[in-house]
């Protein structure tokens, strides 16, 4: 499949069509496609949303500081906790991690930029757009208030009639598309743009973990997108996917949401694991202990994370067998996580530890994250979950994972990498103050919440009765939240102060050894004057110690793997990642169709299998004609290339005409999206397929236009054309599945 000819190290700058060095003024930040600037934009925007989400958290804590408080009315409180969760997950933590990935992945692998700089800019701009959409709900009748996982049917129109939930859906769709695009970019970058010598077993662990995270995003986000689309159709077009009274399934939403939701937990955690895996070795003056195990356990986590979703649903009463099975899966996933903890400790063991603020946060991460992990183990024991879920115990648990884990990782990484990004060191004295106030505030806020849960306080209550100890514990938690707030302010002050007059950092203030430290701080627009040779996992260490240790010493990560055998074309890698993501989306739509229509063939009686079959043949044939077109291009036969391409487009158009006329017939016979579950699933599935065919036709149209403009003169290869071709074949294959399941099964 991949007969690419692009060089191993791609010259990103060349393809961007303009020179980074000339970027000046505020508008250059809007128009930028430089991965470093985009990374900074991600981080700055995240800080803005972090402020919003943090204020929401403080409002929640003020309201809960004492029993039967009237500070906020219940509807406002419910909107605030919904916005707090959604904001912190989708608008703060995810974009922060993507921001760091954007800035450092290319630097750490010795590349000039991301594989697709323009796509990168698009991914970023979808993020503020999604954030704005979500917050626009405030001006359009009220914020969403169904909680961050919007359980149906509470999130359905009868129970959430304002437009908040619609904006929530749209925002998450926009953010989801941006995240998938960003993830595809990271995958293509890591696979195709590594510097010579940077084998897959030598890439820094942050890159490893970000790469695995990107794969998780590509596979998990489309599941959410599919579910969101159906919820939106329920709300806007009156269908009943997730409403019991129309025959739909309330619990199906939970299955879909958590199939996304649990991998999402690792999407939020893995990059932080990667940050810790960079920081601890550098400040221990030792390589990471058990690189293969740290990297390999990440893969194990990623795989297992798709098999544990129902542990979020133990209280739903799925039956003992399901509960036991998912309890087992959940316990399994603790093992690779535990392996990492021991490896980090072993890295410190025998080292020379330097307790910079960055290292302090990394060590605190070890302790705090373990608390979150261990309370997770108590939840894996399903009966304990039957008691503890939906209480403050679970609130404590996931905040220990998300803050004690991810936030501490991010803070460690910020103190570590800020000098590279700004050229200035962060103030260590303020940093230590930031550290200790954070430790005190964080544990004060969340540790007592374990006790509140054990006492029986449900989560998501706007107030609570004056039961013994409840008031006191809640007050402690609230005071802790303010200490944390103060700590965050110190952090921001430290950044602002250091940007203006911090100590100059120099290229490599920590004596670190990954490639980002081989260039200036901040790096110049094209990153490196010259990428140092990569002969091991720690290129700069190897360089510094080359003479001492002798050049013949075997360096780590020497063997090649399949990913090194052939240079890959980034367009092809990108489109395969895209296809994987689209496949997940269609799998959800197809599963939904099957789930609702498995037992009722009669509902499909209104379909005209023969006519659709004829049009389907056109679509299948178009894959063949497209193949002929590719062959003709490779043979240098330009008119053949164009002719077969036109033929392909015509066949696709005929198929779309067929679908349009089928829809027309169904509509006139009185069937529409909201008639029955059959029509809802039918129109959703075939409609989205039709949309994909249409997009494919547009892309092929652009190729044709370029062909007539002479763009393919004298070229026998075009990765863009090949990529679009792959996408077109994929769309056809989806139709084979859809046609078989929706139409043919009906005839049999």
């Amino acid at each position: 499949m991949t007969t690419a000819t692009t060089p191993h190290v791609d010259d990103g700058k060349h393809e961007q069509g303009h020179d980074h060095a000339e970027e000046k003024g505020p508008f250059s930040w809007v128009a930028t496609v430089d991965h470093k600037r985009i990374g900074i934009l991600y981080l700055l925007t995240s800080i803005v949303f972090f402020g919003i989400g943090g204020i929401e958290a403080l409002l929640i804590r003020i309201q809960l500081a004492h029993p039967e408080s009237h500070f906020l009315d219940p509807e406002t409180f419910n909107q605030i906790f919904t916005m707090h969760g959604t904001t912190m997950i989708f608008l703060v933590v995810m974009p922060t991690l993507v921001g760091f990935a954007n800035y450092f992945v290319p630097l750490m692998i010795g590349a000039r930029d991301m594989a697709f700089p323009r796509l990168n800019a698009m991914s970023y701009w979808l993020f503020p757009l999604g954030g704005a959409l979500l917050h626009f709900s405030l001006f359009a009748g009220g914020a969403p208030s169904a909680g961050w996982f919007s359980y149906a049917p509470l999130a359905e129109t009868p129970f959430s009639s304002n437009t908040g939930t619609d904006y929530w859906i749209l925002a998450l769709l926009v953010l989801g598309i941006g995240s998938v695009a960003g993830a595809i970019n990271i995958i293509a970058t890591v696979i195709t743009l590594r510097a010579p010598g940077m084998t897959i077993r030598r890439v820094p662990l942050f890159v490893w973990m970000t790469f695995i995270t990107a794969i998780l995003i590509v596979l998990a986000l489309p599941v959410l997108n599919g579910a969101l689309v159906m919820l939106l159709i329920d709300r806007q077009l009156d269908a009943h996917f997730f409403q019991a009274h129309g025959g739909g399934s309330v619990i199906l939403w939970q299955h879909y949401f958590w199939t996304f939701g649990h991998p999402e937990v690792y999407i939020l955690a893995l990059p932080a694991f990667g940050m810790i895996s960079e920081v601890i070795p550098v400040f221990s003056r030792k390589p990471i202990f058990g690189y293969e195990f740290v990297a390999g356990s990440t893969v194990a986590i990623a795989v297992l994370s798709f098999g544990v979703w129902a542990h979020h649903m133990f209280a739903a009463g799925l039956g003992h067998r399901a509960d036991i099975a998912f309890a087992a899966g959940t316990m399994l996933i603790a093992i690779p996580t535990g392996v990492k903890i021991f490896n980090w400790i072993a890295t410190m063991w025998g080292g020379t530890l330097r307790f910079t603020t960055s290292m302090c946060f990394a060590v605190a991460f070890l302790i705090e994250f373990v608390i979150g992990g261990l309370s997770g183990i108590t939840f894996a024991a399903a009966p304990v979950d039957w008691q503890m879920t939906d209480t403050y115990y679970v609130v404590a648990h996931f905040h220990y994972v998300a803050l004690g884990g991810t936030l501490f990782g991010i803070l460690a990484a910020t103190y570590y990498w800020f000098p590279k990004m700004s050229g200035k060191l962060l103030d260590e004295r303020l940093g230590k103050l930031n550290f200790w106030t954070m430790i005190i505030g964080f544990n004060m806020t969340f540790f007592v919440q374990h006790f509140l849960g054990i006492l029986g306080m449900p989560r998501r209550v706007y107030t609570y009765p004056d039961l013994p100890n409840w008031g006191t514990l809640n007050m402690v938690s609230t005071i802790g939240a303010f200490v944390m707030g103060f700590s965050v302010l110190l952090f921001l002050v430290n950044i602002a102060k250091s940007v203006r007059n911090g100590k100059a950092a120099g290229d490599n203030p920590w004596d670190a050894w990954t490639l980002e430290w081989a260039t200036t701080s901040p790096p110049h627009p094209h990153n490196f004057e010259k990428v140092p040779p990569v002969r091991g996992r720690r290129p700069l260490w190897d360089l510094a110690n080359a003479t001492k240790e002798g050049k013949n010493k075997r360096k780590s990560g020497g063997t090649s793997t399949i990913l090194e055998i052939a240079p890959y074309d980034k367009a092809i890698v990108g489109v395969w990642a895209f296809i994987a993501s689209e496949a997940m989306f269609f799998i959800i739509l197809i599963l939904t169709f099957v789930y609702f229509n498995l037992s009722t063939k009669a509902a499909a009686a209104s379909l005209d299998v023969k006519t659709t079959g004829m049009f389907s043949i056109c679509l299948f044939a178009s894959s063949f004609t497209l193949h002929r077109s590719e062959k003709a291009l490779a043979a240098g036969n330009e008119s053949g290339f164009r002719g077969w391409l036109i033929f392909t487009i015509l066949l696709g158009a005929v198929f779309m005409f067929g679908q349009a006329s089928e829809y027309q017939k169904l509509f006139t016979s009185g069937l529409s999206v909201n008639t029955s579950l059959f029509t809802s699933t039918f129109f959703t599935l075939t409609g989205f397929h039709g949309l994909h065919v249409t997009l494919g036709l547009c892309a092929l149209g652009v190729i044709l236009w370029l062909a007539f403009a002479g763009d393919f003169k004298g070229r026998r290869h075009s990765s863009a054309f090949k990529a679009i071709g792959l996408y077109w074949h994929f769309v056809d294959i989806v139709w084979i599945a859809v046609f078989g399941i929706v139409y043919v099964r009906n005839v049999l």
Partner: protein
Amino acid sequence: MQVFPIDAQSKLTFAPLTHKSMSEPLHASTPGSTGVHAAPGRVQRHVDHGDDVRVPHHGPGSPPPPTFVGKKPAGTSGRPDIAGPARVHFLPTEGQDRRGRVAPVVLGTLLDPRSPGARVIADLFGDTLIVCFLIFGLVVALVTTAILRFRDKGGPPPAQNEGNKRLEIAWTLAPVLVLLGIFYLTVRAVSASDPVPDRAPDLTVIAHQWWWEVHYKSGAVTANEIHIPTGTALVVGVESADVIHDFWVPELGRKIDAIPGRSASIWLQADAPGTYIGACAEYCGVQHAWMRIQVVAESPEEFAAWEKRTLAAAATSSAPDAQRGAHLFAQMTCVKCHAIAGNGEGANSGPDLTHFADRKTLGAGVRKNSPEELARWLKSPQEIKPGCHMPDVQLTDPQIADFVAYFETLR
């Protein structure tokens, strides 16, 4: 057959249990048979010997030790002396050892189980926590040692150790063994704490936004308050009328979602008389916070008397204000949502009020049920429980007085 039932009705498919009392009639008094559906093994330990720290042993005939004992507020009528949740306190009851209650008071409800099922879960939780503390201690010890021993004191770089396969395998396998242990305990606890009900529900709880409708097999109807006889395990059917709710009484066992379109059932049992506070645990909309429920466990005789009383039609009174109130109730919009047997029936979008005055709380726990609070509630339910489905009906003060007089007769 599905691997797991995505949306199947909660037809639980485990082998039926054979414990004696499960098939016993609802009102059967089985003295001394607390822990009737307990699993064999360690659970029995508590039952047989009485785990004195966690579970005070209440033999039959001992004075009723209510879990929540309220201070009697001044100026209230003489109804049962258990206040609404707004004013309840954990207090040691007469004859109980105060020191013995320290653990539950500090560590709370879940470590103070009051039913066999809850006890199994509390034990599992305790065991898991011990394991977690040990692991946590190990991690803290290792990290602390590393911090103290390997601080940078200048000097040459340390040995560049890149890993050790044997160690890696060791710390992969050790957690596997620990988790196998926890998994074993989990599997054992799953069926012991939540035995599969072997019969149709003895009572059904239907969750509404934001109150609980309760129907007994006998036909008795109530709301926001469940009465059960002590020492007998009842099967509770849990359903929803609108969104997903969750029925949860921490001291008495697991929580279970009330999901529209399906019904679940769980066991409910209390070792000793008392009022056990529960709540909706699944976020269900604006007044999720005030969707509380009370389980009143009483002796089988008291329970039988309560059920008999509840089955009767509403009392009628000859007092003129109460009669005016009854008339108003039938005339105004009240009957569209609320039923009072004998004075407007059938409506169930609000709680049945036939024996309203018997209940301990108003508005699913938001206020104690007293004439003063009731008057305030009728004046403006939206102020007390904003967003609830009871509208501000704009009653005049005399109308409210008549209503209060009428409702106070509904025992």
